Each structure stands twice: as C-alpha cells, then as structure tokens.
C-alpha cells in the first residue's frame, strides 16, 4: 500500500506490551485511516458491549492518514475513542507535526489498550517503543511536560503530545495538547488518556513515507500552493487566522452572546470590539506560522502575539467567541490568558466557554450561589473565569461539578438548568449559530460525535464561501430540502478529509474534490473520483452511526436544545429567527434512510455501501 505504512502499533498498558496490528487492506480501502479507527472501536463494542469511556476497556486510537507527511498544506491526526462526555463515538482532529512524525516512526497510528496502574508516558523513538514511568511529571502543566519528556527521550526533534492536570483529573472535556500547541480538543480525549494514566506520547523517526506517484503529487502540490496564494479566503486566513472572522460573524449574528440569549455585542460596533483578530494584531506585534514544523502549509492560519516579553498563542475564533462574546468578555489580554490557561491545564476551550457561560446564567438566575463558588460569577468578569478554569481542571469546589460538562452538571445543580444547557448528546455547542445558519443546527443535531461544526462545514456553503458545484451545489441552499442535502454532502466530505488526514481550511472554498480525488489517487495509487471520495465519507458516517446505536443512541438525541427552535432573539441580525430543527431532522432521516423509530439505517443502504458489519 502507498500512502499507508500498513500497520498500527498496539500498546497494551495493562500488560506493558507491544504488538503490531497489520492493516486490513479491505478496511483501508473502505474507510481510510480515521474510519479504520472507528471500525476498531465498533469491533470492540460488538465483542464487549457498552464500554465505560473512563474504564480500561475503552480503546484510544490515534490515526494519521495517507495524506499526512506528503508535504500537502494542512495535516490532521485523529484521536478516536468512546467519549467520556457523550458515551458515544469521540473523535478529535489535531493539526501539526505529531502525525507526520508518527508516520516517520513507522506507523499509521497507535492503538492504546488497557490502563497502567501508575502514570506512564509512551515513547516511540528511533525504532524503539517503550512505556516509561511518569510519576515525576504527573501533575505538571503541558509546557513543562513537553520539555521534560523531550529531554528524557534525548531527541530534540521528537514530537510530543500530553495531557495536563485536567486530563489527569478526568475532567470530561479534557483535551490532548501537542508541543506545537495544536489541540485534539473535543469529546474528552484527554480524559481518556488520563484514565489510562498516560501522561504523554513522544514520537520520532526518519523513515520515508511511501507515495505511489511522486511526480504527479509534486505537481498537484505546486498548483495547490499557487491557488492558495491567489484565493481570497486563503489570503484572509493567512492575514488573521480564524480570529479575523469574529467581527464579520458578530455582524452576521453568527456568534453566541450571553449563552445564546442576546443578539447584540458591544452595540454591534466593530470599533468597540477588542477581541477581533484585526484589533489584537493592531495593538500587539504578531506573526503567522505553519501549524507544525513538519507541515509546510502555505495558509499559516496559526498566529502568535508578542505579550510580556514572549510569543504566545493568538486565540482562534471559537475561543474568542465561547470565552469572549458568549460570556461578555471584551478584553484581548483576558482571552489570551484564558487560552493559555486551557492549553496548560489541558481543557477544550469550546466546552470550557460553553460551561462557563451556562454557569454564569445559573448564577444570574440564582441556581448557583456565591457561597458555592467562593466569588462572584457575573457576566464579563475575567478574574472569575480564570479562577473557574483552574478549579475545573483540578476538580476543586464547584469545579468538580462543572468538570462533568453541562449535560451532567445541570442535573446535579438543578434539572431546570438543563433547559438552557447548550449541548447535543452531551457535547457542548460551538460558536456557529443555528438560528443564523440552520444547516449548522442540523449538523450539530445529527453529527455522530455530538455538536461539532467541523463534522459538516455547511456555514461556508450557506454563505456561498465554499460551494460545491462539482457535486451539483452551485448556489447557497435555500429550501429546507436543499439545506438537508448540503448537510448530508458536507458530513460525508468532512469525514473523508478527516480520514485521509487533510485539514479542511486549504480545501473548502479553495480547491474542489476533483482535485482531492487526484491527490488521493497519486498518493495511494488507487484511482478514485469525487464520487468515491464522497462515498468513503458516507460509509464512515454510517459506520459511526451503527457504532453509536450499539452504544445506546436514541432518536430523541438527534436534536438541538429548545432554546434554538423555540426562543427567538428580540434584537440583532438574527432577531426573530429560530432553527426549524424538527422538520430538518425528519427530512434528514429520509435522506439518510434512517428508521424514524429506531434511528437505524436501512439494511439495504448498509449493504449498498458494503458495510460488512455482520
């Protein structure tokens, strides 16, 4: 196989042993690598039944993809396991060099089984795999962990991922952080690592990555670079990263404000908003960089700012929205501090922002008292937010409740607060607004991992930034039917991109999927066209769906909080708008051929996709 190395490294932490998992070619062709990881989980669940996400039977698969390490712009590595937040499929994509280095060390991925009795870290360096003691770094923040681990493995160029105290304390939305500060943020993969007592994973190698047709690939990469440099979308991302979009999104009504209850931020006056990428880069020295030293991405949407004598990470759009507009904080240094705290402690900024916003509404309404927190938790109080982030990561005081995520925390605080808990299937809702872009609402409601904007980037299709004429979507969808079809299509395409290890930013609105098909064909030597590309993604979607059904998924969970479908805002760009969730989900079920009672796919559909799950 080209593009693929043909093997995963299996790590059994309970027995402290290693094994080689040779990839099945039929599964690789059907699903590529992230999809392969889902298939591994599915087989585990079929064998053992429901898995406790924080128990030793949960399996963490870290999966690269055939396009990783091939010098294409953008690279993503999947972290896949049963999610401690949802109890269903957990999946999170990490940018940067870790995946490339993992492939250079000789593996398409890692399968982490069992649990260690004591803290450890895993080293796959220069052809040698080891499980090393980590008692001396347990409790450390991530930046210090990277330094110590790299020193101990003795290779400066080794790439390291780690969990912080949040993962160690099994905070359900703990993330995994890389030494390039790229994050596997969503669905609590950091807690899964913490439950296995794996503090970090270090990888290094210099093996060549096999490519079928290097000459064609080189030409495709060269053309992609030219297109990226000319594309307005790519240029804008290069200038400001996603943070540059905040001002537009505020004016577009596409951000959460005060836990989704307000439609106006800072009087909708761009000159008053101090947490936009444009403002931050005017006030502070800034620079762009590729998301990883091994990833030659021409877009370089990753930004840093110079603050207090050091270069620090510039928060991205989702962080600026969930920890900014959502909680009425309009202070750039506060946002930088929140982001840094979350990265050091290992917390997903999206879930953290959603939890804090919900907690602030609880406080406002009297469901949480000052005596229970220890300080005031009014809207827009950055000091309180910083304290709360620390308490959540360490599970101290009310942080112990909030670390459970909004879906569980609301039941503990008062079931009435569940009415305004912003989650789908337990995963907190990101910043794109379902009242503004109904397709986004449908993506959240039907995504197999819970509310995720990256499981179908339809907000780009709805605003005509990234149409898909190669699949017949030449205009922004207007009717309900067109919107549902756009969601189904982008869900499939996003799955394909995740599975081959490609970032979505150099793709949507920049190139088309005929190009992607050419790239995949050149790398693997397997001729595919854009229809097979969509089919691979579609197959993965159904595999994820049947996995979730095995884990107990019920039809009523394919929905949004009623706030979005029944509580229109009284002000702002989306005044009066709601998301017609029920109608859209009904139509979605018809398109996806899901039984309206059980949520199960039509067996004929599964057979058509060759989903041999029996």
């Amino acid at each position, binding site marked *: 196989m080209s593009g693929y190395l043909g093997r995963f490294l299996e790590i059994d932490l309970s027995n402290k042993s290693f094994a080689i998992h040779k990839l099945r070619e039929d599964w690789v062709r059907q699903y590529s690598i992230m999809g392969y990881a889902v298939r591994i989980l599915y087989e585990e669940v079929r064998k053992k039944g429901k898995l406790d996400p924080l128990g030793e039977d949960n399996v963490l698969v870290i999966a690269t993809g055939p396009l990783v390490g091939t010098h294409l712009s953008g690279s993503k590595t999947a972290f896949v396991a049963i999610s401690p937040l949802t109890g269903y499929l957990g999946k999170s994509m990490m940018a940067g060099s870790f995946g490339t280095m993992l492939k250079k060390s000789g593996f398409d991925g890692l399968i982490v089984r069992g649990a260690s009795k004591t803290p450890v870290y895993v080293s796959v360096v220069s052809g040698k795999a080891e499980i090393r003691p980590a008692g001396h770094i347990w409790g450390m923040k991530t930046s210090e962990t990277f330094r110590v681990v790299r020193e101990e493995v003795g290779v400066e160029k080794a790439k390291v991922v780690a969990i912080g105290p949040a993962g160690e304390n099994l905070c359900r939305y703990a993330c995994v952080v890389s030494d390039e500060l790229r994050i596997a943020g969503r669905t609590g993969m950091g807690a899964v690592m913490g439950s296995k007592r794996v503090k970090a994973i270090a990888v290094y190698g210099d093996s060549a990555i096999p490519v079928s047709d290097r000459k064609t690939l080189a030409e495709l990469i060269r053309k992609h670079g030219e297109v990226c440099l000319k594309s307005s*979308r790519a240029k804008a991302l290069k200038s400001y990263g996603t943070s540059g979009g905040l001002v537009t999104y505020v004016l*577009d009504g596409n951000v959460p404000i005060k836990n989704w209850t307000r439609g106006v931020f800072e*009087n909708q006056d761009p000159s008053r908003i101090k947490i936009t990428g444009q403002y931050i880069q005017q006030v502070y020295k800034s620079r762009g960089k590729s998301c990883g030293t091994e990833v030659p991405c021409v877009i370089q949407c990753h930004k840093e700012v110079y603050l207090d004598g050091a270069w620090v990470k510039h928060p991205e759009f989702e962080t600026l929205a969930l920890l900014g507009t959502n909680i009425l904080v309009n202070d750039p240094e506060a946002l930088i501090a929140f982001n840094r705290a979350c990265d050091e402690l290992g917390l997903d900024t999206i879930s953290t922002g959603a939890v804090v916003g919900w907690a602030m509404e609880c406080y406002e309404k009297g469901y949480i008292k000052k005596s229970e927190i220890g300080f005031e938790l009014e809207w827009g109080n950055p000091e309180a937010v910083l304290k709360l982030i620390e308490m959540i990561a360490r599970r101290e005081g009310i942080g112990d409740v909030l670390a459970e995520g909004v879906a569980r925390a609301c039941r503990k605080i008062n079931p009435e607060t569940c009415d305004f808990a912003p989650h789908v299937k337990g995963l907190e809702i990101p910043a794109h607004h379902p009242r503004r872009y109904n397709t986004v609402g449908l993506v959240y409601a039907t995504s197999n991992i819970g509310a995720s904007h990256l499981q179908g980037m339809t907000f780009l299709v709805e605003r*005509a*930034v990234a149409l898909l004429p190669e699949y017949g979507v030449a205009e922004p969808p207007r009717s309900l039917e067109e919107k549902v079809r756009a969601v189904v299509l982008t869900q499939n395409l996003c799955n394909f991109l995740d599975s081959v290890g490609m970032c979505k930013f150099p793709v949507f609105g920049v190139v088309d999927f005929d190009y992607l098909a050419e790239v995949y064909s050149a790398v693997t030597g397997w001729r595919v066209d854009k229809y097979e590309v969509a089919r691979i993604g579609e197959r993965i979607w159904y595999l994820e769906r049947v996995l979730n059904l095995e884990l107990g998924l019920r039809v009523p969970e394919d929905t949004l909080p009623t706030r979005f479908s029944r509580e229109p805002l009284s002000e702002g760009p989306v005044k009066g708008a709601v998301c017609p969730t029920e109608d859209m989900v009904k139509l979605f079920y018809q398109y996806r051929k899901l039984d309206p009672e059980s949520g199960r796919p039509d067996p004929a559909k599964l057979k058509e996709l060759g989903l041999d799950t029996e």
Partner: protein
Amino acid sequence: MKELPMYKLKVRIYPEGRVLEVDVGGPRIKVGDLLLIVEGEIGAARDYYAVALEGRLLSSEDVVEAGREVVLVPLVTGGCLPTPATSSANSREFL
C-alpha cells in the same frame, strides 16, 4: 441650469478606520454594485469584503441610501451572500 445632486456614501474600512467618500451615482445603490466601486478605489478583491450597516451584514441584493455610512469588513471565513451577478464572489479556482 439646475445642477444634479452628488450622491455620496461614506465607507469606513475596518480595521484601518479610513473613510472613503464614494460617489454612488444615484439616490441608492445595491451592495453588490457598491463593492464593485470600492474594488476600483482600494484594489482589494470584491469577494474579500462584506458591507455592514447599523450593526448588521448586508447581502449583495440589499440597497443602501446615499448619505449613509457603511462599514467594510473582511470576509475571512464568511460573509454576505452574493447574487448570481457577482459570481466571482464564489468563483472557484479549478486546477
């Protein structure tokens, strides 16, 4: 002979804050056409910016009265919906 009135619109460019006074040639103008004029003035591609009025993004089909002040904001990851006439706003560079 009676002189024709000059129909102007103020365009504040974000984040620079620079204000252009643009002659829109009539009492009102479609946003899509305004973007064409602005492109000529500042050289940035028409599909790089969106137009906002009174705290709200406008679509290409919306109409702005002369004498108003609008804000030009960069699209980055999204923006107004272009009409079929401004198809370059959603043009694709095919390889």
